[in-house]
């Protein structure tokens, strides 16, 4: 098949990616600025023999996609801040029951109803630690329309491979802007499926501790009759209060993500080859402004680079440390009062690298000019860099 070039909105690209990745169940509830995803899925899924459901609220949306995944379907929902908050309890259920599914959160200003039509990155922490209890999350953060398509596919793939919910963090601007997208032909798309059990039903353990850290997963109706519970459970799936079993379950939730962080997380680097001593870290839409600012700075012979994590949770910590080793002054730019910056502070050696915030939370984007000003300010203060 020939590659198609289309002008797509971010939310539309998300629908394309989901459909290509094999999502065949969508349960959602209308909310700005994510609604176009639900509308797109409502159009596409019945044509493919899939199912779209408009649920009564976001709690039910999250529940329905977990139920559908237990029955074997790749499933997804899309929402924004208030809805993402409502989903948190059942999102925790998906973590503890290791049920693959994808949650798209198109970020808008908060807290509460906040700024429904304005851009924000204030759900950065919530995407990693939104629900109660110990667990590790995967959250991807694309910065453009074509990348939304590919990261939606990646989100579905990661959820299937690691048997975990995956959050796709968009924002009002990337979701609503239109860009040119090369639609890949289906044979060029790498679609992953969850591993099915090969043992006879009697031997099947829904939460078996395996060498890869991820258990094979049967679906309801496959002939494996098993129990799934949100209670802390043993490997078979029955509630437990045995200390060793509790620890084993919680370690499994953590380790399958933490031990694979370097594989899960990827970075986009701009002008980092010549070891600049000043760099910008930002994600999503802000990274587009950062890249522009770096180009403008380089035109003015200012040696600056930019690092963009494509995955916010987990960060590939070892690679990040290595990347930032030559950097003496690190600007962390984000659309909130300081969330990504805390993660960066945690991972970077601050004896060598000074960390400088650049934050905006009035519902508008950080502009390249703002970043360039900050670069100049940083360059002109302190040691010659």
């Amino acid at each position, binding site marked *: 098949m020939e590659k198609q070039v289309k002008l797509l909105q971010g939310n539309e690209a998300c629908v394309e990616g989901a459909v290509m990745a094999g999502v065949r169940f969508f349960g959602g509830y209308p909310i700005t600025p994510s609604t176009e995803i639900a509308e797109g899925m409502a159009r596409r899924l019945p044509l493919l023999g899939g199912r779209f459901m408009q649920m009564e609220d976001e709690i039910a949306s999250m529940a329905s996609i977990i139920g559908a995944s237990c029955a074997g379907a790749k499933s997804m929902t899309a929402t924004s801040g208030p809805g993402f908050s409502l989903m948190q309890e059942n999102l925790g259920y998906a973590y503890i029951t290791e049920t693959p599914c994808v949650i798209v959160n198109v970020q808008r200003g908060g807290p509460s109803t906040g700024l429904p039509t304005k851009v924000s990155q204030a759900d950065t922490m919530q995407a990693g630690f939104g629900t109660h209890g110990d667990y590790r999350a995967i959250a991807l953060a694309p910065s453009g329309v074509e990348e939304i398509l590919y990261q939606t596919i990646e989100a579905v793939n990661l959820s299937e491979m690691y048997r975990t919910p995956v959050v796709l963090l968009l924002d009002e601007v990337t979701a609503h*802007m239109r860009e040119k997208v090369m639609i890949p032909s289906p044979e060029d798309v790498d679609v992953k499926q969850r591993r099915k059990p090969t043992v006879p039903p009697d031997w099947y353990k829904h939460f078996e501790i395996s060498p890869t850290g991820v258990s094979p997963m049967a679906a309801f109706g496959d002939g494996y009759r098993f129990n799934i519970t949100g209670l802390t459970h043993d490997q078979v799936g029955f509630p437990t209060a045995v200390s060793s079993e509790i620890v084993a379950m919680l370690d499994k939730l953590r380790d399958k993500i933490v031990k694979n962080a370097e594989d899960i997380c990827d970075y986009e680097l701009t002008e980092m080859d010549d070891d600049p001593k000043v760099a910008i870290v930002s994600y999503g839409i802000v990274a587009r402004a950062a890249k522009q600012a770096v180009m403008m700075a380089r035109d003015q012979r200012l040696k600056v680079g930019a690092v963009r994590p494509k995955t916010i949770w987990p960060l590939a910590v070892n690679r990040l440390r290595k990347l930032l080793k030559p950097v003496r002054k690190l600007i962390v730019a984000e659309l909130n009062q300081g969330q990504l910056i805390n993660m960066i502070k945690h991972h970077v050696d601050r004896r060598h690298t000074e960390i400088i915030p650049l934050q905006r939370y009035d519902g508008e984007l950080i502009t390249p000019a703002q970043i360039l000003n900050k670069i100049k300010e940083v360059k002109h203060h302190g040691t010659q860099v």
Partner: protein
Amino acid sequence: MNRAKEKHAVGSDRYEIRLSGSGGQGLILAGVILAQAIGTIDGKNVVQSQSYGPEARGGASRADVVVSGDEIYYPKTMKLDLLLALTQEACDTYFRDMKETGTLIVDSNMVTQPPTQIYHGFPFIQLAKEEIGIAMVANVVSLGTICELTGIVSKKALIEVVKMRAPRGTEEKNMKALELGFKIAKEAKK
């Protein structure tokens, strides 16, 4: 007057467009058509965005298109190369976002007090009403004019996309509107 076009003739430069007016004038659709023509047919990179919210209902409305031969980093407009204003309010609000060398195109009936001497004025809405029969196609007339005056989009691409995007039954009217836009701009250039 042709500085914008010359700059664009260099090819790979960033070129920023804003189509503005009031809600209901079809400017977002015009922005999408322009972006689709430039992006999917002319083969350049393009980002289209718009303002959301209450202003989409009668207040100032706008659609932005950023064009470049190279990768577009920052997706929003920074300094406009081209501003189309179909209302005085939009013209007053967005004129300050323009480059000094930018091109201003206005509806000459609606924008009675242009903020500069250097601009192109056409009675888009009146012409759409009188020559095509519906004021609604003023957005397409203005696209034709933009194409002819700036060359930022090819005629071929624009024609193709307007045909594709026109609601069924209105193809002919929209094509006439586009031709009208080409014509009035050509005459103005003489």
